[in-house]
């Protein structure tokens, strides 16, 4: 008989980590930047248990947060049993200025990381903290080391000396854990369910869901869409669901007609009922463990068929597989759910996925009626949106986030 280990023991982990943090800090102070997600909150709770007031707990408002998020998070964490005192640092303008007109996904992440650590390092100096506690988890550094994308909180693993560059030593108490294990630890620590079961939010926040260049109105549209998607999909949306905003600009690509034929064959719909567009924006993907900053195709089935066709998710999954397999440059396939004013400047994509550990992801099956209702509400509240898409792409060949 095989004796299988009872997976992972959160109690033992908590105990050993509290001891280790206390020992490493000694009489030194540490700083942590909380995002309100399960990773950073778990680390804060561990460190607070280890050193109490020796922990300076901050929340940096980068401007790429969801509507009302900073205050909501502070209120949640100040409650018992956590009773974490959280300081909000207003840094929206600094981040918007730093990002400027940067368009490339990797450049945006790098600018964000640099601004984030500069800001944090200034506070750390003021508060005399020589240690930084952060909630890096296993997939973060695996992906960064593999060159897939730059996570904002990974320094030491990629050879950036935090002490030299920013003046603090980094402690990463949960760096070997996967998301499901972190949640187990969070529950063990008595962290409220709103946080322990909360869907992950990327380090650079909405920056990576504001595809391409950041513009104030584009970001506002994204925040409004996020709110609608989170509300509408709350009970059926899979482990993670969110909105992304793209430019309603069509790129020029020789493969357009070929893709159109492939869609028509795969769905067995006449060619004139199918329209494929290649967007100007690009999105991060991963094919055969290699990062591809790939093209995005949107598939538009004529309205009649869309209604009759409804929501044959298996067919659309197959379609996505075929298109991304046959066209090496493509890493995203979007399916048009509803259309607004054709001349509007932006598009919104709804993404909902099923995943255990965020290393791989499948798209969630959402009732067509829910999807169209969500799309309708977005179009009603955001007059500058031309198309609402559902993202059909699994991971791989896409990554979970757009950038």
């Amino acid at each position, binding site marked *: 008989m095989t004796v299988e*280990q009872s997976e992972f023991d959160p109690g033992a982990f908590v105990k050993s980590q509290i001891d280790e943090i206390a020992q490493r800090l000694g009489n030194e102070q540490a700083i942590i930047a909380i995002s309100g997600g399960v990773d950073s909150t778990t680390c804060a709770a561990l460190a607070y248990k280890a050193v109490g007031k020796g922990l300076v707990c901050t929340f940096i408002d980068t401007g790429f947060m969801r509507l009302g998020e900073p205050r909501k998070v502070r209120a949640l964490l100040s409650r018992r049993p956590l009773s974490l005192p959280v300081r909000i640092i207003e840094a929206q303008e600094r981040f918007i200025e730093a990002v400027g007109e940067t368009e490339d996904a990797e450049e945006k992440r790098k600018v964000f990381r640099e601004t984030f650590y500069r800001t944090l390092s200034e506070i750390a100096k003021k508060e005399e903290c020589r240690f930084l506690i952060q909630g890096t988890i296993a997939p973060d550094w695996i992906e960064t080391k593999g060159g897939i994308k730059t996570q904002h909180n990974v320094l030491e693993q990629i050879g950036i000396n935090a002490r030299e560059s920013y003046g603090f030593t980094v402690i990463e108490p949960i760096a070997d854990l996967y998301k499901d294990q972190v949640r187990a630890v969070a529950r063990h620590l008595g962290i409220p369910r709103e946080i322990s079961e909360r869907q992950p939010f990327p380090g650079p926040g909405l920056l990576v869901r504001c595809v391409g260049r950041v513009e104030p109105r584009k970001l506002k549209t994204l925040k409004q869409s996020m709110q609608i998607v989170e509300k509408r999909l709350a009970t059926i949306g899979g482990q993670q669901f969110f909105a992304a905003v793209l430019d309603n600009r069509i790129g020029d690509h020789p493969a357009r007609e070929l893709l159109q034929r492939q869609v028509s064959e795969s769905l067995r719909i006449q060619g004139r009922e199918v329209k494929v567009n290649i967007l100007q924006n690009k999105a991060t993907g991963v094919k055969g463990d290699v990062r591809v900053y790939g093209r995005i195709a949107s598939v538009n089935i004529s309205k009649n068929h869309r209604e009759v066709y409804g929501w044959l998710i298996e067919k659309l999954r197959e379609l996505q*597989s075929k298109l991304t397999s046959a066209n090496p440059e493509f890493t995203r396939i979007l399916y048009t759910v509803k259309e607004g004013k054709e001349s509007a400047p932006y598009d919104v994509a709804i993404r909902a996925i099923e995943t255990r550990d965020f290393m791989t992801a499948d798209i969630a099956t959402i009732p067509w009626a829910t999807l169209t209702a969500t799309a309708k509400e977005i179009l009603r509240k955001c007059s500058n949106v031309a198309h609402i898409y559902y993202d059909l792409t699994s991971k791989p*060949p896409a990554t979970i986030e757009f950038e």
Partner: protein
Amino acid sequence: MRNDERLVAVLKPVVPVVNVKGQYNHLIVRLLTELGAESSLVPLSVSIRELEEIGFNGLVAGGGPQSVYEENSRRELRNLEHLLKENSEPLLCICVSHQLLAEALGGRTGPAKEPEYGRITVHVDEEDEVLRGAGSSFTAWASHNDEVIRMPDGFQRLAHSQNCKIEAMRSSNRPIYGVQFHPEVSHTTMGRTIFRNFVEIVKRNSTSGR
């Protein structure tokens, strides 16, 4: 192997994982550990002697971004290629390592006509030991631009998919396996079964008193 060493291997076999730099290599260690083996990542440069020093009873080689017929990749993988030839313990090669295994033992790897990213259906031709309990077909996750075009002599095919002829293969006379899909990711429904089978193969092998 001495008797007490064999006993230890039955209780907790040592199964290191060669880190071929793919994103999922860590998941293999996680699964093996959960299944009661002692596992850790070892670098591409690891030698057979170093593996013997840690008392390995079986070996897994993970996936990676390389393309085995491309010169620089092949150079990067040269040490692993030797290792795959020299090793005499049970071996499971995944994705790029599966392709390298084919090349190393006289088969052939080339670009896939229809590469697979994400969900595929694996059709089992032969359950053998490693796919035991997987049924006639199962859903798996794959991510590869290349594929095994011809198996080495003395290998048999265990599974295929619609777009890929050789999803799984084994040596007919040794416990050496290659799989093109990723059994270590949670979306591969039979992944845990496959690793449990492999751990069993390792245990049986280390007590067979060769």
